[in-house]
């Protein structure tokens, strides 16, 4: 082998590649300040609409907290759909995907970087929504068990981005128009996961069915820790943690399988480079 520039290998290269791919999401996307409007003001408008519906109906104050939490959670779901699930499609159009397929680090750290960058950037947006919403409507959140709260949030994020990675391969293989697919998973998921109301209101079995979406269990668990017994829980909170761990493992395995399948089909059928 000809001597080339010194390079990191193994976990160090994985780490470098992850940081490299997360960079455009953390630094690059914040360089364009339009996110302040599109990612905080616009979701807040929808949130505010629900707040006024609940106020008009004379619903208890906790519902305002529900709605603000739901508004913040939409930021994560939108990020997973538009910037994870649809990302391979955009990358294919721009010519990045072919390059990602032939770099020696493999595609896994690139996806990990996309997830990490997406999560950190979205965290800023979600925090902004919670802060602005709470200030506007005077909502106070009291977390009864901070450790458990963070555990639920963390496991849910892993499951959610695992789902995003699995969808990234699926969208690429199924869809010619990724934004149609992403659109399909917006409003129905807002409804099915109980973004703006306690999911138990859908009925126990319907809510259990929609628990395949990690946000359903996550939102319900977090609301239990925020609103205590006032919240009509779907399941005991620890069961929800176990369910989320199961989903995280399931989506990680599914993402790995889908990624390999996509890579194989791309090489066998030329789906990354077919021009006719």
């Amino acid at each position, binding site marked *: 082998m000809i001597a080339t520039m010194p390079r990191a290998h193994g976990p160090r290269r994985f780490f470098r590649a992850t940081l490299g791919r997360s960079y455009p999401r953390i630094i690059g996307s914040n360089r364009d300040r339009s996110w302040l409007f599109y990612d905080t003001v616009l979701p807040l408008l929808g949130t505010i609409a629900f707040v006024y519906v609940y106020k008009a109906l004379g619903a208890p104050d906790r519902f305002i907290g529900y709605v603000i939490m739901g508004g913040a959670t939409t930021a994560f779901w939108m990020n997973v759909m538009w910037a994870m699930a649809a990302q391979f499609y955009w990358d294919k159009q721009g*010519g*990045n995907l072919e390059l990602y397929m032939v770099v020696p680090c493999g595609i896994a750290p690139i996806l990990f970087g996309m997830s990490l960058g997406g999560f950190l950037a979205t965290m800023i947006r979600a925090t902004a929504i919670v802060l602005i919403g709470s200030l506007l409507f005077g909502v106070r959140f009291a977390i009864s068990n901070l450790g458990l709260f963070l555990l639920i949030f963390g496991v849910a994020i892993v499951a959610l981005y695992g789902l995003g990675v699995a969808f990234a391969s699926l969208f690429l293989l199924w869809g010619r128009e990724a934004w149609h697919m992403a659109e399909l998973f917006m409003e129905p998921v807002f409804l099915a996961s109980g973004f703006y109301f306690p999911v138990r209101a859908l009925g126990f079995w319907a809510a259990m069915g929609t628990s395949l979406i990690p946000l359903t269990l996550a939102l319900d668990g977090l609301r239990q820790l925020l609103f205590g017994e006032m919240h009509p829980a779907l399941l005991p909170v620890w069961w929800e943690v176990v369910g989320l761990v199961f989903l995280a493992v399931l989506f990680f395995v599914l993402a790995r399988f889908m990624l390999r399948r996509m890579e194989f089909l791309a090489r066998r059928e030329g789906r990354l480079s077919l021009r006719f």
Partner: protein
Amino acid sequence: MTVPAIAAQDLVRTYRTKRSPGNPDAAPVVALDGVTLEVPPGEFFGLLGPNGAGKTTLIKVLVTLLLPSRGSAKVAGFDVVAQAHEVRERISMVSGGESSGYGLLTVREQLWMFSQFYGLPTRAALGRIDELLRVVGLFDERHRRVSALSTGMRQKMNLVRGLLPDPEILFLDEPTVGLDVSAARDIRAYIKAWIAERPGRTILLTTHYMHEAEELCQRVAIIHKGRIIACDAPAALKREATGDSYFVLSTEVMDGASWLGQLPGVHRVDSRAFDDHTEIRLRLAEDGAIAGVVKALADRDRRILSLQKLEPSLEDVFVQLVGQRLEEADQSGGPS
């Protein structure tokens, strides 16, 4: 024994197609049809052919983006199917018209991002990025957003991306396509200098610009309809074509010159009309056949403005092998 940088043995690649009014049987398209070639380390090798000849498909098989339908290929001694990871450690690829990367990043950030996929330490990577940006004349643009670059600048940046990991084998797929004359000349100069300064590095370049292949490549394979129909040094290919004689003459404006093809010893006639004259390129069986052409034009009162005997070009070699000029073959393109 030296391991070839690139070795392909009877490579076949077909694409499935969908049923359509123009393709009722959904017949598969054969993009590569038994390609065999060997490129030793250190060579600047060219793959020349019209659009749809199979150049890009061959590159994509070699860089592990596509699996061959049949046959085998090795890059740096590693099998492109079974040892794809080993191949990827040693190669880099730059395509013409590439719009990879993210427009919000600056040139330097974008190149740093790609350097991390190869595991290059940040300080070394940034040093090399600056050095390469100076070479291609983009150093002053290093803090400019990628979205604000012109096509030529973007392609220079893509070339820097390809050179950044200092690959053993560099694949260049039509790197100058769509560029203006000056930017294309710059790109050719950089890659020529790069390989000259690094003995043992190999470049495989696909192009459909004859002059580019002639200027850069030590050996050229001419590919047509998925088959390699000739492979040798440009000078040797031209020598093989010297069985015929080549002339170019210009006359007063003529409606057409194809009738010259009926004269004895005239193998091919290509004419191009200009405002004030018509240029006619002739391939003749022997030098003496030009006398018949001159007489025939005189008989029709067509004044000859100039007459010149030509050394055959790669274009002539292509015409002799394929029976069409490259632009004509481009018309019947398919997958590439």
